[in-house]
C-alpha cells in the first residue's frame, strides 16, 4: 500500500514537473533535474509577439533562431523590409518583441531542439531564415520535394504549421506531423 502511494506521488510529481517545465524556460538547475529532458521548443507566451508576428505568419517560437539572428531581424531599420514585406512596428512594440525574442532565443534555451539550433549556428554568420539553419534542413531532407514545394497546401518549409499540427505548442515531433495530401506519409 505504502509502495503504491509513493509510486503515485512520484508519478504525480514527475507529471507536474514536466508540464510546468513545458510552459516556460527553466534555469540550468531545473533543466538538469527535470526527469525528462525537454525535447521541444518553448511555445510563444508573449501576447504582443503572438499578435504582431502572428498577424502575417506563423509566430515562430524564438527558440528556432539564435539571438544573433533576432538581433538582426528585429530592428527599426530591418523591419520595413522583412523578407520583402513592410513589417514596421512602433518603438514600444518593437522593444517588447525584440526583448522577448532575445530572452528566449535558441542559445538561451535548454530545450533540446533549441540547443541543436544554437550549436548548428554557433560558428557561422547569423541566419536570417529558419529554413537556412543546418539542423532544420537536415531534419527535413528526406522528405521528397513533391510533398513540400510541389504540395499546394504546403509550398515551403516556412509554413511550419502546414504539417506540424502541434507547432503552436512548440512541439515538432515526427509523431505530430501530418502532411496535407499525403495521409500515408510516415517518418
Amino acid at each position, binding site marked *: 500500500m505504502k509502495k503504491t502511494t509513493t509510486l503515485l506521488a512520484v508519478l504525480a510529481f514527475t507529471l507536474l514537473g514536466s508540464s510546468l517545465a513545458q510552459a516556460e524556460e527553466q534555469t540550468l538547475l531545473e533543466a538538469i533535474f527535470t526527469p525528462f529532458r525537454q525535447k521541444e521548443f518553448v511555445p510563444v507566451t508573449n501576447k504582443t509577439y503572438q499578435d504582431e508576428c502572428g498577424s502575417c505568419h506563423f509566430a515562430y517560437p524564438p527558440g528556432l533562431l539564435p539571438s544573433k539572428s533576432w538581433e538582426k531581424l528585429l530592428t527599426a531599420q530591418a523591419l520595413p523590409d522583412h523578407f520583402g514585406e513592410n513589417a514596421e512596428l*512602433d518603438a514600444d512594440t518593437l522593444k517588447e518583441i525584440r526583448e522577448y525574442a532575445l530572452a528566449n532565443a535558441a542559445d538561451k534555451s535548454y530545450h533540446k531542439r533549441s540547443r541543436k539550433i544554437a550549436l548548428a549556428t554557433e560558428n557561422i554568420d547569423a541566419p536570417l531564415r529558419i529554413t537556412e539553419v543546418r539542423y532544420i534542413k537536415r531534419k527535413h531532407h528526406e522528405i521528397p520535394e513533391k510533398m513540400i514545394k510541389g504540395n499546394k497546401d504546403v509550398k515551403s518549409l516556412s509554413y511550419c504549421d502546414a504539417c506540424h499540427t502541434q507547432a503552436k505548442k512548440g512541439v515538432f515531433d515526427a509523431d505530430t506531423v501530418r502532411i496535407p495530401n499525403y495521409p500515408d506519409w510516415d517518418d
Partner: protein
Amino acid sequence: MKTLYTLMIVGALALSGTAHATPATDALLAKYKAEGVTKIDAAKGKADWTKSGKGEDGEAISCSSCHGTDFSKAGKHHKTHKVIEPMSPRANAERFTDEKKIEKWFKRNCNDAWGRECTAQEKADFLTFLLAQ
C-alpha cells in the same frame, strides 16, 4: 437655398456611406480632414483598391491581391498564405475598431502595394468605401 440643398444631400450620402462607422473611424476621418481632406470620394477608394503599384520581385500587387474584392469573405496573404479576416465590418465586427491598428496597416500595406505611404485623401477614400461594404 440650392447650395443648402446640395449640402444636405451630400451630408445624407456621407452619413449613409459611413453606416458602420466606429469611434475609431470617426476619429481618423476627422484627423484626415484636419490634414486637409475636404471632399471624400468612396468611388476613388473603390478604384484604388484594385490599382497595383510597383511590383515587388516582379509581382504587381494591389489591396485586392490579399484582401480580395468580396469583402464578406476572408482573404489570403499573397506570400505567407495566412488567412486575413473579412474587411467588411458587417462580416467582421472587429474590423475598424482600433485607430492605431488601422493606421499601422495603412502604412505597411500602402508601402507594400504602392511603394509609398498613402495620402490622407487616399486613406479617407479607402476608409469610407470600406465602411459602406
